[in-house]
């Protein structure tokens, strides 16, 4: 929903009291719940009705997707491309759920209910706990606080925006891009914030678990480079499409930057391996 604190490894943490977990969870939930206000204002500014805005926060409950949807619809995008763009941002929740299902060990009957709360912040808090009991506690308290806060402040934001009149005059149309930027920058700097499923859990992340060895560093730098390349290429693709494609579609084209960068990286590492092999062969001949 907003910037999640960097993931801490699940294992190897000292035991901590339940009250500390509750305090952390309440803090994260309350701080982020407040930002529903920004969504309420943005959604109303994009032309959504009060009911539409509140249904989004109640039933979608994953902030980046909500901002993306109202942004695309507000710009005149067609319903399905707008929804597709929102779904692309929601994909990361599947990877949070993957890790959470191992950490929380939920019974099948509870899973459909818990699924609704699988988002950045609940995952960050739950995955930072040293054992299953505290992870469940952290997940639940963050979920309750955040869900309540996000929905109440969405309502207040939407009502407030209606009172303000033209949102563009107040600069409220940049709330969405500002939120996206706040989400994006940590992903470029620290991969664990973008994909906790890859890092949080069994193995401590390089540089976080006290094993930031020389062997771990080059991989980390490479990851960062790919992420910046994807962001830059996505921006170019999106803006290049604007004159030619209807609103909502350019973002779908821009997402192709992700597989494109991965493909180029794979080709380059394969070429480098070939060069190394032939250099080794020449050295042997000489």
């Amino acid at each position: 929903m907003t910037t999640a604190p960097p993931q801490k490894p699940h294992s190897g943490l000292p035991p901590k009291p339940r009250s500390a977990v509750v305090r952390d969870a309440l803090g994260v939930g309350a701080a982020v719940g407040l930002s529903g206000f920004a969504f309420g204002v943005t959604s109303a500014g994009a032309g959504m009705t009060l009911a539409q805005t509140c249904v989004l926060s109640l039933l979608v409950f994953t902030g980046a997707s909500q901002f993306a949807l109202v942004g695309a619809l507000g710009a005149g995008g067609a319903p399905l491309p707008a929804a597709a763009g929102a779904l692309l941002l929601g994909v990361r929740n599947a990877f949070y759920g993957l890790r959470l299902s191992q950490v929380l060990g939920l019974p099948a009957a509870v899973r459909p209910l818990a699924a609704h709360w699988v988002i950045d912040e609940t995952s960050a808090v739950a995955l930072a706990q040293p054992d299953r009991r505290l992870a469940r506690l952290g997940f639940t308290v963050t979920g309750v606080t955040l869900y309540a806060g996000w929905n109440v402040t969405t309502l207040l934001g939407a009502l407030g925006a209606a009172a303000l009149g033209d949102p563009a005059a107040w600069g409220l149309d940049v709330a969405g891009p500002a939120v996206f930027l706040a989400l994006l920058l940590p992903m470029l700097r620290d991969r664990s914030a973008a994909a906790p499923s890859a890092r949080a859990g069994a193995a401590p992340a390089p540089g976080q678990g006290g094993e930031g060895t020389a062997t771990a560093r080059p991989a980390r730098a490479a990851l960062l480079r790919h992420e910046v390349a994807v962001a830059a290429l996505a921006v170019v693709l999106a803006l290049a499409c604007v004159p030619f494609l209807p609103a909502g579609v350019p973002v779908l084209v821009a997402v192709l930057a992700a597989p494109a960068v991965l493909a180029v990286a794979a080709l380059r590492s394969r070429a480098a391996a070939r060069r190394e092999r032939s250099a080794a062969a020449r050295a042997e001949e000489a």
Partner: protein
Amino acid sequence: MGVWIAIAVTVAGCYAVKLLGLSVPAAVLERPLMRRLAALVPIAALAALIALQTFADGRTLVVDARAAGLAAAAVALLLRAPFLVVVAVAVVVTAAVRALTG
């Protein structure tokens, strides 16, 4: 009506994705390629949305007060401002630039 259709698709899709993660066997999503794509797709989408919502006006590209607001948000982020402050700074700077430039 179109808006409600978009909302319904988003509600169903976002929930399905969340439930999928909790329900599928880990091996399916844990492949290295899937993990890399899952990390990179939101980055591409966010970067594109930032650019589009800042520089697109219908089917034309413009640099207007929104760019100033976004730049201010970037500065606030680099100074490690809290989330709500970042959004507030962007909004206030955009409004101020609009007011000044008429």
